[in-house]
């Protein structure tokens, strides 16, 4: 059973190839300073609670809440979740997370990894949580960045 932790350690966090796919642990989306868009859950398949982290060097606003870093858990992502804000370095960081049930937010270790695909305007992420496997279906979600803000 593959655990991608070792590969990420060796690559110092940089993407690497696995079974013909580029494997990433974090995505640095290039955006404009003013950013808006939405995130939507497509599916989950894990016995652990799944989540997505959005992080900017600036400020995001989601559902009237403002902050630099958000974690959106699967039960709050069933409908498209809209966000807008500013990013000083014109980047939106995205990675997946999970909670095994003890309230701890986990990410980037053991089997964690993402495969990124594009479908029109949408960026789709197929993700592995901490389980050391390679099915990349623990959480699948999409992010759409408004083109007029890019």
């Amino acid at each position, binding site marked *: 059973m593959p655990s991608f932790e070792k590969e990420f350690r060796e690559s110092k966090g940089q993407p690497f190839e696995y079974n013909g796919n580029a494997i990433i642990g*974090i995505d640095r989306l290039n955006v404009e300073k003013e950013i808006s868009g939405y995130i939507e859950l497509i599916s989950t398949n894990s016995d652990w609670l799944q989540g997505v982290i959005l992080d900017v060097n600036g400020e995001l606003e989601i559902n009237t809440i403002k902050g630099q*870093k958000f974690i959106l858990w699967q039960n709050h992502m069933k409908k498209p979740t809209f966000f807008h804000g500013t990013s000083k370095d014109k980047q939106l960081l995205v990675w997946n997370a999970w909670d095994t049930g*003890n309230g*701890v*937010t*986990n*990410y*980037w*270790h*053991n089997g964690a990894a993402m495969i990124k695909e594009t479908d029109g305007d949408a960026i789709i992420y197929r993700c592995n949580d901490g389980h050391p496997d390679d099915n990349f279906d623990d959480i699948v979600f999409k992010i759409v960045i408004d083109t007029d803000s890019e």
Partner: protein
Amino acid sequence: MNSDPSGRETLAEMGAAIGMQAAIGAIVGGSMEASMRVLAYLTSGNEVDAGNLVFEFFDGFMQGAIIGGVFGALFGAFGAIAAESILANCVLRSAFLTMGLANSFDGIKGILGGNYWGGSLKIVEGILWGLGALPNYYRGGIENSTYTTAAETNPTKSKGWRLGDPPDNLTAAGKEPSWSTVRQRYWKNEAYYNSNQYSAENVSRMQKGLAPQQMNLKTGMMESMEIHHNYITQSSGLPDMHAPWNLKPVWPDEHAMIDPNRFTGG
């Protein structure tokens, strides 16, 4: 040691200390004064009379005993306060030292003046006073850990620790474990109970008492998982601060988000 949960002396112990000090003061003071009076009588050049000698002895003893008892009780009471207060402890020891030096100087002066017996006794008295400055009477604060065992202060915790036990169990000697010890036990337990949540490398680290690590993909640097004190802060020093229900493993960025005292610099 019969102590209340805070490790302080009980009122009964304070009373006993005062009484004991008064009795010792009376015996020492009476003996000293009686000896001096007898010596003064014997070296006065007058004809020695057995009745006068006995009178001088008992009169001197009673006078010395009353003064010694009063002083002893006062010092005993002050000693009981000194057990609670560092300041009182310092004052008491300084008083003993001052009395010791003063009597010693008087003794030296007496010997130099030709009063050998009286001077020698004064020096002995000075030494006895000086001995009172040697002990540390304070029993609170930091020194409490060597005075009252943790088992006495926290009877709900078990002594000794084995894999799977609460990490804040007392040491085999009954002492509160250090944070370093609690942390090592915590990670060993995490490897024992939740090994399926970590890579083989991290399980191996945790089995040695070390925190799991991951590559921080934002910074490209390795980082170690930390343990957050949920409700009772570590700086509080309260007895249950390392209890399992108060501890939560977190990665550094999350720790910085929930704990204003934790900064990652990123």
